[in-house]
């Protein structure tokens, strides 16, 4: 560096004193342990809930628990809670764009037979004969999903 003494350093117009320090939040070990425990509990919860037969409510419940665990990891383990606001904005806008991608695509797939009933999706039985991929019919004896031999 050609200057003799360290220049008054500016960033975006504001002078900066400590050229050397890095000001970052250091959270105590106890907060990590608490979050870790919560994550284990939530995992056990979602594992247990899967055995109860919730029918089609099981997807939303699993998603809520997963979001809870994800937000715990993001806020504490990834320091989003104490971080520069722009990183949070980047993370939230990513989730927003993933949501846009999902909603429009799934909306289209659900509305296909809204106007013309027979436009709904169907798929032929003779699958992949071009690749010689022929699932044989199950023999009468074996009920669907039988636990086969090794």
């Amino acid at each position, binding site marked *: 560096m050609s200057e003799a003494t360290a220049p008054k350093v500016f960033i975006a117009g504001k002078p900066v004193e400590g050229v050397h320090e890095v000001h970052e939040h250091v959270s105590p070990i106890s907060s990590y342990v608490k979050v870790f425990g919560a994550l284990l509990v939530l995992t056990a919860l979602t594992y247990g809930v899967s055995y109860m037969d919730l029918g089609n409510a099981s997807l939303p419940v699993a998603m809520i628990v997963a979001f809870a665990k994800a937000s715990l990891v993001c806020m504490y383990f990834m320091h989003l809670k104490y971080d520069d606001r722009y990183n949070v904005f980047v993370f939230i806008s990513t989730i927003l764009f993933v949501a846009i991608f999902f909603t429009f695509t799934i909306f289209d797939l659900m509305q296909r037979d809204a*106007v013309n009933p*027979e*436009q*709904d999706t169907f798929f032929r039985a003779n699958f992949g004969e071009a690749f010689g991929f022929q699932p044989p019919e199950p023999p009468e004896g074996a009920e669907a999903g039988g636990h086969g031999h090794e």
Partner: protein
Amino acid sequence: MNLSTLFLAMAPAKDAPLPPNDAKGGPWSMPIQASTFAPETDAIYLFILVLCLISFVGIIGATLYFMRAYRRRSPDQKTSSITHNGKVEFLWSAIPAVLLVVIFLWSEVAFMKQVVPPSDAIDIRVKGQKWFWTAEYPANPGVQLNNEIIVPVGVPVRVTLTSEDVIHSFFIPAFRIKRDAVPGRYTTVWFEATRPGDYNLFCAEYCGDQHSEMRGVVHVLPLDEYEAALEEAGRLELEQGESLAAFGERIYTRKGCNACHSTDGTTKTGPSWKGIYGADRTFADGSSGKVDDNYIRESILEPNAKVVAGFTPQMPSFQGQLNDDQITALIEFMKTLK
């Protein structure tokens, strides 16, 4: 000044009858309006065109005027200190927004009319396949047309589309309709022809080598002639006094064999039929055999059984589309091709 004559001399004369010319109204006009949708689609097209011309003349006119009025006359020519003008900027965002909403609404209404078929429409099932259309009429079983669709005038027709292999697109410019034929599902499009005549049918979604050959003709006939023409088109039998080979040649063109097999020796997607009868062929699996009646019959019904070496197994099976005497007629026709 028609430059095409300059180049037509080079192109070999095409033997097939010239396909219909939808754009009779000269180079700048839209195709003929031959369906109930056409007038409204053209009206929307014209409305957007007028809006675009006005704004285009406005933009380019202003640019040209400013270029002339404010060209640099002296190196230190003073310029205005305007940096923005809230009112003007609001106007030139609000007015386009309103006009755009108007375009959207009108176009959306017209689209919804195009999409909901009336219940009393004639049903036609069209199947797109690598490089030809097959139309079937559930109301007249046994009628099967290749690259041809016969529809009555003034009666709504609902076309249910599917495809055997890749995505094709059922496009009739004169009716202003287009719908993709997606493999693995049905899609529907409907129209009501208003003018008798022949109109072009194109495949608009890229589907491989012969994508541009996958053309057809839509015959619009008055109602009374429609039934008779359909019957006649469906019937593909030996006429009195017609030789078996001539009947075979009719099948060759009607069933779309010409799309892949030429009769003058040039190999297209399939081997040429010139001098094929009785010749020896080596097949893809290394074995070889003589091209006799059984081989031809087998190749028509199960094309992938013995594929000639160097060709891809792309031929669809014609099981149920060709009866026995039609196949014998085809064999007779092949014998004549030395």
